[in-house]
């Protein structure tokens, strides 16, 4: 599926000052029984939202499109329902000291930008958005910069992922350009037994 292009975004940020936010916390399995791709935003952080003091229940963060969180964000399951829920809720960029691998790949395919910054920087951003909920952060994917107040931090990003996000490219369209290479690989593959299935089973 094509994704929504992302160039630059300025928004208030939701601070989530805890590490190891797993995908079960982002969206519990009981909400994954549906066969649709949309409509998961209402279940985002379902259990945490039952606590009235949880940051998502604070009206001052309503409409914020950026999430700033602790290290190892998105660990656990491969469920794309997690980025679907974040995207449906309105989140377009997540800043953290580190992300889980599968979650990070899934985010690209949903059009969410994941940005790794130093742990101290992330702490600073969390503090800023905690004390001043309206404080805006800019995530600039064209210049690979995060800007907040007078501060500027540069971030590294997978060049291919950046290109896809900037242009909103569908990964399947990109791969289908290489049909000849896929077919050639299949011919080579058919000649040896490695990786072939006996389908008489």
């Amino acid at each position: 599926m094509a994704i929504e292009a992302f160039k630059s975004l300025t928004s208030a940020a939701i601070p989530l000052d805890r590490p190891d936010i797993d995908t079960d916390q982002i969206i519990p399995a009981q909400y994954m029984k549906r066969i649709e791709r949309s409509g998961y935003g209402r279940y985002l952080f379902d259990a945490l939202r039952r606590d009235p003091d949880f940051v998502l229940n604070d009206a001052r963060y309503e409409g914020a499109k950026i999430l700033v969180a602790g290290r190892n964000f998105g660990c656990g399951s491969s469920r794309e329902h997690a980025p679907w829920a974040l995207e449906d809720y309105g989140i377009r960029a997540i800043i953290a000291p580190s992300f889980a691998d599968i979650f990070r790949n899934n985010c690209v395919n949903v059009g969410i930008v994941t940005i790794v910054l130093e742990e101290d920087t992330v702490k600073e951003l969390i503090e800023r958005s905690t004390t001043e909920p309206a404080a805006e952060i800019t995530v600039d994917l064209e210049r690979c910069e995060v800007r907040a107040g007078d501060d500027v931090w540069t971030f590294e990003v997978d060049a291919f992922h950046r290109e896809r996000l900037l242009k909103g490219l569908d990964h399947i369209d990109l791969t289908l350009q290489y049909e000849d290479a896929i077919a050639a690989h299949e011919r080579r593959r058919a000649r040896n037994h490695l990786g072939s299935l006996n389908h008489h089973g």
Partner: protein
Amino acid sequence: MAEEPPRTLVDKIWDAHVVRTVPDEPDLLYVDLHLAHEVTSPQAFEALRLAKRQVRRPDLTVAVPDHNVPTRNRHLPASDPVSQKQIETLRHNARENGLLLFDIDDVRQGIVHVIGPEQGLTQPGMVIVCGDSHTSTHGAFGALAFGIGTSEVEHVLATQTLQQRRPKSMAVRVDGDLPPGVTPKDVILAIINTVGVDGGTGHAVEYGGRTVERMSVEGRMTVCNMTIEFGARAGLVAPDDETFAYLEGRPFAPDPEVWDEAVSLWRELRTDPDATFDKVVSIDASCMAPYVTWGTTPAQSVRVDEAVPDPEKMDDPTEAAAAQRALDYMSLEPDMPITDIPVDVVFIGSCTNSRIEDLRAAADVARGRHVAPGVTALVVPGSGLVRAQAEEEGLDEIFGEAGFEWREAGCSMCLAMNDDVLAPGQRSASTSNRNFQGRQGPGGRTHLVSPARAAAAAVHGHFTDVREI
């Protein structure tokens, strides 16, 4: 001609599957086997339909319902109509696209990561993917196997490939004799505890060392299964005679006339002696003990003969705050001995520990004993064939006499998508892989353990050092 640089097992599998490689772009990697289940595939099939694309290689995708399926009254639809629709959607998508399906009434149905190896679909040297993070299980056969998201499932269906960056390499070596009562589950919990919950992020792991070499193939599956719990997407063990013996004669394994040729190719799937890894971790198994998790990540564990840790004694403030949150959620006090923790529910099952050796280990503890008053204990075999094998061995009778419920195959209480759910506040001893908040039901509290220790908790009503039994 220049000599080829030494390569790791992962390098060799990777190189053999590269369809296209150019600088600054991910490699295009061919997928030999794609496993599909009902939860993470419906949106992929739907998107494919909307884009008017075909499944490129219907012969390389195998489908099975497992996450939502009921584990009793299987002749009835799932009690939740939304679950039932998801199961039916998988059935419809398999039929429409000509995919092999092990449906709910097929004895071969079971947890996707149990049936792949059981059917011989999983083979050394393959690239295997599934919309499930525990796909790492198949690495026990020397396959590069990892979990993917639904958009990637769609990509595989349409192209039989994936765009992937080559992961960094990590070696985890385990040496030393396992003390009595210490199982592969304890080994992987110890590894996760040592490496940390994100110590493997960005890496593919190769397990080695004498302890791993001497493990059964099923034990290796348990270890590889939980590789994702320290952040690495794939965990592999080089295939050996044990691996080949396990696979020989299985329905989808190579035919007898090409078997020897397959084995000789598989024997080349080893890391070259001079190959180096980006990260190496060595662990001594001889001082291991049974492990129990006390917190809400699989890294938060201690030996069964230890006590719940005190967050105030932790150096790292972030770790201490996370530990305190975990203790609050788990309703535990610092310094409480693990063996004093009572349990309400015992779950023996999941893609981590639901194979025949796991059920035998649990039955050995259950034999001649009885589930403690007030405790509910479930045994959920990993597949219809594991269940049949267990019944042939009389394990169902042992469990039945001991007061354990004997169920049908599925993911069940590992993630509580069917009716097998912890009530809020209930505490489980579970042989599954994740103790995340709410994983086994909203408000449920999960302690991860091995099958033997789960069975012991069931009969005692609290954790116990099974080595004493």
